[in-house]
């Protein structure tokens, strides 16, 4: 028995993050009031520092595999690590003033947030069911607490409790599914599972096992019909946390599904694929359709964005449902969709926070006349919403395009039908995004507005997201390469 090889360069981003978490925690515990205010700064410095090894590893380019192949640092992992760090940085920008103004404990907030990010970082590298499970839990558990951060608000309490109960239950279901997979294949490493599922001994049991595992993931990515916790949790949680949940932790779930499907069950000749395929197909179609139809009826901005994120999740499941027949296009599509979705959704939440500071309201009605009272915010919000709707030349069109491309690349009836369902849904989606646009531009302003300047951090978050959305929309080439990195 030899000791495991530890590649410190490969683990450097995670090590830096862990060190940051420890430092922020120590400062909060032992520091005085003067030191404690440093917590947000320390957290953002840590996140930016973690970028450095990600970049050096990307330049190095070698695939690094540890712990018997359970933990891999390749370009695919690095792309997601970079993405998660960027999302975290943007979330921190959204949080500074929100948490600072709200008289909340700052230190713990950042510790919990960064711990969740640590889970995301390991998720990107996980190639083993156990690593994936541990990563998912590391992502989820801190966010249960974060969702209840506004502890004097009953809605926030409700958000946390719902999220917690559903999260724990889904973990149980998923773990049971994983244990069955282990029972059938005698392996936890995805690559070994892939070999075992070509001619499995217990095909029926394997179908049940993959179904249960996918159901667990479906809770995490809030796919219909496992989505009912989402609107309440999103509405009750502090808005920066909601932004984080809707982008980062959702993306964490998608990385899990993507890795599991692409590495272990993506072989179209395996009997496991057909049950995986149909489960994903139904989840995708249901999430798109129900998410969109319910979003149409929302009057609260955050709830609308919650249902919109369910529908967007459905669009992201589309390529996964054809991953067996068109693996390259499918992986590329999911990666590209996640990255673009991250930028536009975070941007939209940044505007929601900025507007709520002024109007004190999250109702869509309070956006009336924003085009007159605050044209810059209104223009930026219009951009994000139209990007979410997939209107060119904003980045969202390219995400949707890659999704259509993957679905049609499969050349199967199932894929083509799903593409048509997605096309119809993208039209329905436009209606509710446009409803906000219409409120902002076609209606007269109502109610009182505080003449508050938008904080610098928030402005920066909006500018970064807006720049990404425009640049990618016009010239997706550079960016789309990132999706090609996967070499499963």
């Amino acid at each position, binding site marked *: 028995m030899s000791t495991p090889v530890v590649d410190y360069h490969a683990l450097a981003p995670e090590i830096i993050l862990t060190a940051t978490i420890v430092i922020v925690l120590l400062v909060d515990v032992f520091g005085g009031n003067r030191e404690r205010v440093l917590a947000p700064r320390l957290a953002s410095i840590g996140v930016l520092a973690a970028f450095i090894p990600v970049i050096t590893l990307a330049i190095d380019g070698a695939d690094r595999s540890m712990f018997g192949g359970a933990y891999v640092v390749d370009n695919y992992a690095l792309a997601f690590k970079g993405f998660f760090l960027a999302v975290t940085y943007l979330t921190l920008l959204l949080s500074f003033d929100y948490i600072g103004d709200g008289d909340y404990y700052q230190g713990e907030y950042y510790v919990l947030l960064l711990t969740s990010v640590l889970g995301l970082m390991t998720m990107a590298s996980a190639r083993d069911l156990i690593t994936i499970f541990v990563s998912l839990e590391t992502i989820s558990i801190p966010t249960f607490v974060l969702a209840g951060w506004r502890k004097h608000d009953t809605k926030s309490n409700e958000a946390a409790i719902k999220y917690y109960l559903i999260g724990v239950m889904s973990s149980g279901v998923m773990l049971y599914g994983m244990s069955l997979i282990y029972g059938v294949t005698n392996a936890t490493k995805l690559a070994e599972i892939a070999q075992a599922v070509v001619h499995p001994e217990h095909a029926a049991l394997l179908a049940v096992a993959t179904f249960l595992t996918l159901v667990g993931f479906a809770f995490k990515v809030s796919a219909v019909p496992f989505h009912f916790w989402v609107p309440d949790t999103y509405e009750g949680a502090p808005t920066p946390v909601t932004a984080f949940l809707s982008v980062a932790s959702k993306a964490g779930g998608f990385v899990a599904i993507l890795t599991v499907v692409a590495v272990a069950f993506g072989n179209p000749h395996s009997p496991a694929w057909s049950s995986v395929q149909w489960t994903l197909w139904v989840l995708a179609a249901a999430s798109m359709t129900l998410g969109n139809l319910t979003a149409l009826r929302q009057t609260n901005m955050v709830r609308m964005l919650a249902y919109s994120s369910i529908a967007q999740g459905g669009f992201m499941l589309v390529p996964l449902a054809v991953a067996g027949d068109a693996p390259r296009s499918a992986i*590329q599509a999911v990666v590209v969709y996640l990255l673009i979705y991250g930028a536009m959704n975070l941007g939209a939440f940044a505007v929601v926070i900025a507007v709520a500071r002024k109007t004190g309201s999250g109702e869509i009605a309070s956006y009336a006349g924003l085009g007159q009272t605050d044209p810059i915010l209104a223009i930026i919000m219009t951009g994000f919403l*139209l990007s979410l709707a997939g*209107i*060119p*030349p904003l980045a969202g*069109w*390219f995400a949707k*395009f*890659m999704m*259509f*491309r993957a679905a*049609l*690349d499969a*050349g199967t009836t199932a894929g*083509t039908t799903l*593409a*048509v369902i997605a*096309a*119809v849904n*993208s*039209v329905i989606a*436009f*209606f509710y995004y*446009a409803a906000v646009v*219409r409120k902002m*531009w*076609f209606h007269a302003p109502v109610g009182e507005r505080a003449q508050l300047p938008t904080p610098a951090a928030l402005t920066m978050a909006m500018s970064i997201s807006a720049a990404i959305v425009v640049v990618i929309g016009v*010239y*997706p*080439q550079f960016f*789309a*390469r990132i*999706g*090609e990195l996967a070499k499963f």
Partner: protein
Amino acid sequence: MDWINHWGLSLAVFLPLVGMGILLMIPKAEESSIKATALVTSLLTLAVAVAVAAKFDYDHTGRLQQQVNKPWIDVIHSRYHIGIDGVSLPLFLLSAFIVVLCIVYSWDHFPEPHNPKAFLALILLLETGMMGTFVAQDLILFFIFFEVVLLPMFFMIGVWGGPNREYASIKFFLFTLFGSAMMLVSFVALFFLSKIHTFDMVVLSKLHGAGIAHSTELLVFAGMFLGFAIKVPMFPFHTWLPDAHTEAPTVGSVILAAVLLKLGTYGFIRIAMPMLPGAARSWAPWIGLLAVIGIIYGALGCLAQKDMKRLIAFSSVAHMGFVMLAISTRTSFGYNAAVFGMVAHGLITGMLFFLAGSVQERYHTREMSRLGGLLTQAPRMGWLLGFCAMASLGLPGLAGFWGEFPSLLAAYNPAHGQSDALFRTYMVVAAVGTVLAAGYLLWMLQKVAFGTPKDEFANAHIHDVHPPEWIAWAPLLALIVVLGLFPNLLFKVTDGAVTKLLGV
């Protein structure tokens, strides 16, 4: 002037965008410099477009000229490929030309809620989309430009439109978005089905859908059909049009009628028909059927209208029916007629919408039962309305005739493989449509221009045509006459190109 060959088209497409950028940086209060910037941008764009036309080799109108083919999104095999031929050129020029006139027309009277900065910025954005669509030679590039057009029009109707603007704007957008979503699915499907995986329109047109099973081809064509037919709009997808036209500000209606509707018919000629000729042959009788239904339905719809602008909108449905009938014959004669019909409809209906807008501005109503006696109160405007009505009903010697009459002739002799009897029936029905057209246009003229003013306006001071109106209208009127007298100016340009597209 050699740079025109390489840069002319891109310059004409993106100049308006640059102008929009500059315009957005000018403070809102400096209205005159905002207007000047917009006008100069549109004039420069027109100048570049004219230079492109001057450099164009009229001996080989079928050849795609002044091509630029640069990498754009390699990952999906989409390239920045633009070029111009005899079908694109007239529409390209028309777009640049109409925008200038629209900016001149709006000079002094921006519709409520005023805000020239936003209004002009949207027009310039619209121009980029329109110009780009007509020169794009890559399906994805085409799709992008095709979609870019939607947003500015959505805002123009929604912000500056009439009382029912919200409903009209969202209806316009949802209809077109549905079509273009289906169209995009078809484009991507075509990419994977064709022997060479490419989005290049030139290559795909040459392939003629080779190697695609007929049943699949029919479905792919159906997706494109939805995208383009909604834009045209063909019966039964036309219902967004009367609402959009009625509610849109004058300039919005003009651009909508003059250029945006042509994006659909252009799509048929450039993309759907040549790339999937097998499916086009099977679909042609149905397209022809919908076209003639559109002609009759549009005409009958006109006769039921009380609102002058709505009547002109319905007449668009009928006129575009003629264009689609010509396209459905799949003959070079028909295609020539179609392109001519597109340009003529753009000039004439654009002009009619200008007039309707000016009438409304003076009388604050477009209800024909309240109007009357325009000829006594503003004789010049009354005569212009008469002139345009004549042009629109297809009076020989004016441009409208050369769109309508050859399209009927083309239906007499459709392409090989189509039923002569069927298309000749269509021809007869469409001919009835021309009679109806004369009916509703003269009826409108009689209601609005003839007779004496109604009591409520008897003592109103109605200003005759303003100088900015003259400047905006004179070029349109001149072109209606010139193209009416010398149709070959246009037919010669389009003929080579349509022959090439038909692949005969």
